[in-house]
């Protein structure tokens, strides 16, 4: 346990000190990574902890981006509030989506999430008056924070906001996983029928976790829109849902940290391979299949196996 705490502290320190150390172009990449790490971690709540595979997570991401865009362009709210409010809006809408999708289980659930994702994409495309259609919404300002904090309009400042969101979300999720609520999710993951027989309304739990997952994905999307300065329909397309799913599986599902590693892996591969070959997407797909078939615990799982600790049976406190 001590070892984990030290690693966490070191990691957080590195993240916080990065702006002092890294050059500008690396900061841009790192900011993008932090945003994607949040996006991927949010999906892990569903896929890794509750075994709810989703092909529509891009819907939450894009929704958050558009919420941020609309709020930033039409109000004078400072950036941190815009991000938080966007996340809450997406989480709220997600309750309805989650209610619909949890009417089914397994594959049907996954396909319903896909359907909703595509629906969101179609709406973003067609509702031109609100979403700007295929052009999307651009010119999103990075408005200075409350109390006249202009730091957020700078690159390092925005980066720290993103890190704050990621860390806040991470610690929230960790507390959630350890709580009684989290225990029920574990049960649902391993034997939902038994959880029902034990007296739990499993559907309510599923709706809750999906809404929370969508909320954090929305937060990531809002950060992205502020980061990039625009929101476009492509953010909602199912291929984006596929990419974040790859990050979760390849990184290591059910660990919160694994998907973050997956995000790093994905972006690195994308950047490096796309310089060499046009076929990097193909390799990504093959890597994904290989991981599902042969390394279902992802990169983090492989790393854990290699350190002597291995995979202990879950003790009291997990």
């Amino acid at each position, binding site marked *: 346990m001590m070892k984990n705490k030290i690693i966490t502290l070191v990691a957080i320190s590195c993240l916080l000190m990065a702006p002092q150390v890294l050059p500008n172009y690396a900061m841009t990449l790192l900011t993008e990574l932090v945003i994607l790490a949040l996006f991927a971690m949010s999906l892990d709540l569903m896929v890794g902890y509750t075994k709810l595979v989703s092909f529509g997570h891009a819907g939450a991401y894009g929704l958050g981006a558009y919420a941020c865009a609309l709020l930033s362009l039409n109000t004078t709210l400072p950036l941190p509030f815009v991000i938080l409010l966007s996340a809450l809006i997406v989480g709220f809408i997600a309750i309805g989506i989650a209610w619909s999708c949890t009417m089914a289980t397994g594959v049907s659930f996954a*396909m319903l999430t896909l359907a909703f994702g595509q629906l969101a994409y179609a709406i973003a495309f067609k509702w031109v008056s609100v979403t700007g259609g295929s052009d999307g919404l651009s010119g999103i300002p990075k408005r200075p924070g409350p109390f006249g904090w202009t730091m957020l309009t700078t690159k390092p400042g925005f980066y720290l906001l993103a890190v704050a969101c990621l860390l806040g979300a991470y610690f929230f999720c960790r507390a959630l996983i350890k709580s009684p609520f989290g225990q029920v999710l574990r049960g649902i993951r391993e034997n939902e029928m038994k959880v029902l027989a034990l007296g739990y309304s499993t559907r309510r739990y599923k709706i809750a976790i999906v809404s929370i997952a969508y909320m954090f994905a929305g937060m990531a999307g809002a950060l992205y829109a502020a980061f990039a300065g625009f929101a476009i329909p492509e953010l909602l397309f199912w291929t984006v849902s596929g990419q974040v799913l790859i990050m979760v599986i390849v990184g290591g599902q059910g660990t919160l940290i694994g998907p973050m590693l997956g995000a790093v892996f994905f972006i690195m591969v994308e950047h490096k391979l796309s310089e060499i070959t046009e076929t990097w997407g193909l390799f990504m797909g093959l890597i994904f299949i290989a991981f599902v078939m042969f390394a279902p615990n992802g990169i983090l799982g492989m790393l854990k196996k290699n350190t002597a600790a291995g995979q202990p049976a879950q003790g009291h406190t997990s």
Partner: protein
Amino acid sequence: METFSFVLIQTLNALSQASLLFFLGSGLALIFGIMRVVNFSHGALYMLGAYIGYTTAKLSGSVWLAMFIAPLAVGVLGLFFEIGFLRKLYKRDESAFLLVTFGLTLVVAEVTRLTWGAPPLQVPLPSGLSGVLFILDEPMPTYRLFLIGAGALASVIIWGFLERTRLGLLIRATSQNSQMVHALGTDINLVRSGVFALGCGLAALGGVLAAPSITASPGMSSAVIDAFVIVIIGGMGSFLGAILGSLIVAAVQTFGNYFFPDFAMAILYLLMLGVLIIRPGGLLGKEA
């Protein structure tokens, strides 16, 4: 008379659309019936059918040949994939299967993009069907009438095969109780692989038939959603359900696109949700 001719024309349009959807959906229904898993790459195979059809037509000059080669090629491909990969996943939980077939979708999409490029490709209408027939003074492309005929013929043939032949009986029995069928001496794996290949071939046939109308493009792989909507409405694993589902979805799409073009998609999803609430197994379904 104007309303009548309008309704007739739109109905014919809907029927031709239903035909295409039928090929797409029936494949998924058959695969689900026999394997209890959803092949996420179904849409990608549909797309592949269109592209292989395009190339065959280009090389041979005959679209008719393409309609024969494409399903065959994709069916064989599906067979190899099932034997090589998917068989290993039956023992694992269904999400593993879903994820692998999802990965397959990505791979097929990328291979397609690399081989044929991103811009849509036009497949010509088969010779002899490029004309237009006048029905009640309204023009109706002959190809659409052909599609209606092809769909009707295929559904009758397949239904007959499932209901009236020994092999069909075997398939239906396996989808209801595979262990029993296995105990009676049949190699389940062969039946499964065969049905899987058939399902893939049907999807590809749908793709190659659709290609002249909608052009071969990378976006086609999202057709898996349509296939799924059909199967959800009609009933997972039910062949007749796939026919019914195709008709319903086509009707909603055709008339919906005419009257509420921006909401047609939403209407369809609402319909699917409605069916899920009222009859979770689908209208004709027999959920496991």
